[in-house]
């Protein structure tokens, strides 16, 4: 839309959207607590189901922790743009003379801080609960830090593609689980290597590359997907 008003800088636009989304997440803390609670519940249930043998838990825990983190992220990112779509914020965003990639990235960033980042911060605690050996804790933290960035961006892309589809949940899972598989493999392998005294750095480097790559590509794809979803 052509405008004679001086445009805001992209940084200012990003900040506005970040604050708006961040503040509105803070007003409904239940949404943030949900994935953490889910994470916590599953982690407490696993030793009950598998038996409390520490040696066995230690070998299984990297995989369990990562799969649960993936599911928790899938659970919340599915709804990332839903409320914006329903309350009309999205059409206003689309009409604004700023790239949707920037405004969408602002929302995803706020969302990640409240979900993926928070989950990363508490993950060593859950690691201890699940008998993950101490050598693996730092690697778990770093791998989840990088991994949740990927998972959130991929989930946001899925959400952007499916917002205007009724009961898009199943389609969303089908769309994004394959994309999440490499993240899961690199993440669990890194933690397992750290536990076994191997070399987790190379796997973390791969995860870092994935995170940077998705930071560059995903916002553009999310912007385009939101436009397509609004148009139809």
């Amino acid at each position, binding site marked *: 839309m*052509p405008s*004679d008003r001086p445009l805001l800088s992209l940084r200012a636009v990003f900040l*506005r959207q970040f604050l708006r989304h961040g*503040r*509105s997440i803070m*007003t409904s803390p239940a949404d943030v607590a949900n994935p953490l609670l889910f994470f916590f519940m599953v982690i407490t249930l696993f030793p009950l189901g598998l038996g409390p043998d520490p040696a066995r838990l230690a070998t299984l825990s990297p995989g369990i922790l990562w799969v649960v983190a993936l599911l928790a992220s899938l659970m919340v990112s599915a709804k990332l743009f839903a409320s914006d779509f*329903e309350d009309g914020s*999205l*059409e206003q965003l689309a009409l604004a003379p700023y790239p949707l990639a920037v405004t969408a990235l602002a929302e995803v960033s706020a969302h990640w801080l409240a979900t993926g980042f928070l989950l990363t911060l508490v993950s060593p605690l859950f690691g201890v609960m699940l008998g993950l050996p101490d050598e693996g804790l730092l690697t778990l933290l770093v791998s989840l830090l990088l991994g949740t960035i990927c998972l959130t961006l991929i989930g946001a892309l899925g959400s952007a593609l499916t917002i205007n589809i009724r009961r898009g949940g199943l389609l969303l899972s089908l769309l994004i689980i394959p994309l999440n598989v490499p993240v899961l493999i690199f993440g669990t392998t890194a933690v397992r290597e750290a536990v076994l005294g191997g070399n987790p750095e190379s796997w973390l480097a791969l995860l870092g590359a994935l995170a940077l790559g998705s930071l560059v590509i995903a916002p553009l794809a999310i912007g385009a997907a939101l436009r397509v979803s609004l148009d139809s």
Partner: protein
Amino acid sequence: MLLEATQVAIERGDRRLLSGVDLRVTGGEIWQLVGANGVGKTSLLRGLAGVARLGVTGEIRHAGAFLYLGHASALKLGLSAVDNLRWHPASDVTASAGQICEALAAVNLAGYEHRPVGALSAGQQRRVALARLLLSDAPLWLLDEPFTALDVAGCEWLEACVRSHLNGGGATVFTSHQPSRFGTLQQDLDLGHYAV
């Protein structure tokens, strides 16, 4: 000329709603889109704004900025009225907190500035959304059912607001089921004539 739409056709799904709509809006004009339920008033307005581009054919040209206010108010229920306007997703409000409070006072919401919008009534939420009109300098307003949920005083305020926008050289295109609110000032575009 603020808006020029030529031979616009609107399709929704696989059904064609309207075809051959011509509309030229210049400063100082009020246009009301009228027609029965389902004739395509909202779809046309969304098409004119450029929100939905799929299924809209024909030429739509804007000269200058416009403000679009849809059915949905684009308000976050957890945020206060001030925050909602300050961080409005359209990013067209660059007013200070003081100016926003003045605008909220003008829509009779003084004292509600910092309450969560979700705690306000539907009419009050509508007023928050409409306060954006006072803070924007866009010459063209595209308003979808702006009178919905407003009480008598609210409707009168909105009328006065549109009139003063007109005197400032602006123009308004709106949809409503209430006939001729602006008397001789307004022109009607009866979509029944273009229905397919």
